[in-house]
C-alpha cells in the first residue's frame, strides 16, 4: 500500500472521498439505529413521535433521555478516541501508539478513581451543584496532567524524543495503575461499587449533562486536530525533514498532546476507559483511504464513531435486559473486521 494522496489527482481523490462518504453513511446509519433500536421495542412512529415531543412519557424518556444522549456521546467519544489515536500514531510515527499507550487514559482513570474514593470527603466542602461535576472534572484533569507530564519529561533542548515519550507513557501507565490499585484497596464497599461500574467503561450512564461536558471538548479538539493534517503528513518524512520543510515540529507535538488529552480526557471522564478504538480506527481508515492525513483524519473519526456506536448497539441488544461492558464488543467487532481488512489488502497488494 504505497499510494499517496496527491492533491489534484482526481481519480485518487474521488475514490478516497467515496470511502470517507461510506464511513459517514455507516456512522449515520448506526446512529439512527441507536435511536431506533433498544431492548424496549418502539415502533418507527413512536420514535418519531418522541423526537417531535408527541409521545407518552415512557417513549419520550427512552428516546430523548436514554438513547439520544447515548448516541451523541458514543459518536463523539468514538471520534475523539480515533482522532487522538491518528494524531499520536502520526506524530510518534509508531503504528502501535494510542491514547492508552502514552498514559492519557490511565491519567483520566486515576483522576476518576481518586474522585470516587477521596471525593466523598471533599464533596462536603463543595456547593451542591458542583458535586456531580467532581468525577468528570477529576478524570479530565488526570488525563491532562498525565499528558502534560509525559510530554514535559520527553522534551529536551526544544525537541520531543519519541522513544522517551513512549517510555514515559509506559511509566505513567504503571504508576497510575499502582495508585488506582492502592485507592481501590483503601476504598470502602460503597466506593468499590461505584468503581467497579466506572472502571469497566461504557455509555450506560449517558445523559445530557455528560453530553454538555464532553461534546464541546471533543469538538474543540477535533477542530484542533483537523488543522494539523498537513503537519502530520510532513512528519511522516521524519522529524528532521519536517523541520527543514519549515514545520515547527515542537509546536505540532505540543498541539497533538494538548488536543489528544482534551478529546480522550473528556471521553474517559464520562464513559470510563474505552480501549481499542484509538488504536484500530486509524489503521482501518489508512487501509481504506491511504496514508494522506487530509483523508485519514476524517475517515478515522467516522470509523471511530461507527465502531463505538456499533459496539454500544450490540451490547444493548445482545442479552436484554442485561448489558455487557462495551469494551467486549469494540474488540469483538473491531478486531475481526480489522484482521479481515488487513488480510484482504495484503493479498491484493501481493
Amino acid at each position, binding site marked *: 500500500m504505497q499510494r499517496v494522496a496527491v492533491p489534484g489527482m482526481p481519480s485518487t481523490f474521488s475514490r478516497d472521498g467515496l470511502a470517507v462518504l461510506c464511513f459517514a453513511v455507516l456512522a449515520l446509519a448506526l446512529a439512527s439505529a441507536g435511536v431506533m433500536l433498544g431492548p424496549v421495542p418502539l415502533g418507527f412512529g413512536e420514535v418519531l413521535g418522541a423526537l417531535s415531543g408527541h409521545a407518552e412519557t415512557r417513549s419520550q*424518556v427512552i428516546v430523548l433521555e436514554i438513547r439520544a444522549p447515548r448516541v451523541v456521546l458514543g459518536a463523539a467519544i468514538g471520534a475523539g478516541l480515533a482522532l487522538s489515536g491518528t494524531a499520536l500514531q502520526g506524530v510518534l510515527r509508531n503504528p502501535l501508539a494510542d491514547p492508552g499507550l502514552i498514559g492519557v487514559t490511565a491519567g483520566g482513570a486515576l483522576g476518576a478513581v481518586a474522585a470516587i474514593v477521596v471525593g466523598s470527603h471533599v464533596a462536603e466542602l463543595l456547593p451542591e451543584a458542583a458535586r456531580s461535576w467532581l468525577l468528570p472534572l477529576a478524570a479530565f484533569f488526570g488525563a491532562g496532567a498525565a499528558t502534560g507530564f509525559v510530554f514535559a519529561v520527553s522534551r529536551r533542548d526544544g525537541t520531543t524524543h519519541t522513544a522517551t515519550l513512549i517510555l514515559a507513557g509506559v511509566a505513567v501507565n504503571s504508576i497510575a495503575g499502582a495508585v488506582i490499585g492502592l485507592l481501590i484497596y483503601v476504598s470502602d464497599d460503597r466506593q468499590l461499587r461505584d468503581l467497579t461500574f466506572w472502571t469497566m467503561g461504557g455509555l450506560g450512564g449517558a445523559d445530557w449533562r455528560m453530553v454538555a461536558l464532553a461534546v464541546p471538548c471533543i469538538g474543540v479538539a477535533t477542530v484542533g486536530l483537523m488543522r494539523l493534517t498537513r503537519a502530520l503528513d510532513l512528519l511522516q518524512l521524519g522529524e528532521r525533514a519536517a523541520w527543514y520543510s519549515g514545520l515547527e515540529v515542537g509546536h505540532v507535538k505540543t498541539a497533538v498532546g494538548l488536543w489528544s488529552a482534551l478529546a480522550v480526557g473528556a471521553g474517559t471522564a464520562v464513559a470510563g476507559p474505552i480501549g481499542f478504538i484509538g488504536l484500530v480506527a486509524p489503521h482501518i481508515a489508512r487501509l481504506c483511504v491511504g496514508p494522506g492525513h487530509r483523508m485519514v483524519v476524517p475517515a478515522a473519526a467516522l470509523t471511530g464513531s461507527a465502531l463505538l456506536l456499533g459496539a454500544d448497539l450490540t451490547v444493548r441488544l445482545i442479552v436484554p435486559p442485561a448489558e455487557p461492558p462495551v469494551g467486549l464488543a469494540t474488540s469483538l467487532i473491531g478486531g475481526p473486521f480489522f484482521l479481515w481488512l488487513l488480510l484482504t489488502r495484503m493479498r491484493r497488494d501481493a
Partner: protein
Amino acid sequence: MLTRRNLLAAAVGAAAGSASWTMVRAGTGQRVLVLGGDLAEIVFAIGAGEIVIATDTTALWPPEVEKLPKVGYLRRLSAEGLLSLMPDLVLAGADAGPQGALDQVRAAGIRVETGPEGTGFDTVSKKIVFVGSVLKRDAEAEALAARVAMEMASVEVALSSLAETPSVLFLISLANGAPMASGTGTAADEMIRLAHARNVVDGFEGYRPLSPEAAVGLAPQIIVLPDHAVGAGDVRSALDGTGLAATPAAGQGRVVVMDGLKLLGFGPRTPAAVGELARALHPAAAARLDL
C-alpha cells in the same frame, strides 16, 4: 449469558415490536421488578412471588426465581433493559445501581422504591416491613417479620449455652489464589458474631486481600467460605492453591462451606443460617443445640 434462547427472544422481541407491547399491557395485575437477592426472598416469602416479572443475578432463592428473566448484575443495571420488561414497580435494594439508571427509570414514570441500607439482623425486619408497605401486604409482612424475630430469638436462646467462641476466618473469594478476607463491619462479621464465634480479622473494615502469611499468623480454628467462592472444585484443592493449607483450620480440615446468599443476605433465612453456621462452628455442642 449469551444463549440461543436469549438471541431468539431478542429477535422475536424486535420483530414483534408493538404487538408484544399491547399484549402485555392488556394483562392485569402488578408487574414488579425486584433488584437484590434479599428483597426477592422476602417478596416470595410474603406470598407475592406471582407478581415478580424479573430479578437481578443476585436473586438465587427461592427456586422459583430461576425461571424469571435476569436484568444482569445488581450494580451494573441498564435503564432501558429495566424498562423493556415494562414493570410498574421497581423494588431496588440499597446496593442497586448505578443511580443514574434508576433515575432514568423513574423519569420514565415507573415507580422505583429503594430499600433500607445496612447489614445486621436489624435490617431484616426493616426490609420485610419495606417490602410489605410498598406491595401493600403489610399484614403478611408483619407476620413474616414476627416469625423471623421469633426464630432468631429461639436460635439465640439455644446458642446462649455455648461457652466457647472459636476463632473464624471468613473468605469471600479465593480468586486467583488471592483470598479476600472479611474484616469488621461486614455481613460475614455480623454472622460470625451471631453464631457465637470470633472473627480473627479485626485489623481492617470490609473485604480485603489477605496474604497467606498473615492468615497463618492469625491462626484461625475454622475457615468459612460461601459456596460461590469454592466453585465446582473441592474445598481442599481450592485452599491448597492459596497457601492457606498451613492454617490450623485447614490442617484439621475445619472448613465450612455455606450457601452465600443464605449466609450473607440478611433475609428471612437468616435465623436458620445462624443456626446452621453455629452447628458447623461448634461441632461438639451441635448435638445438644436444640435448633
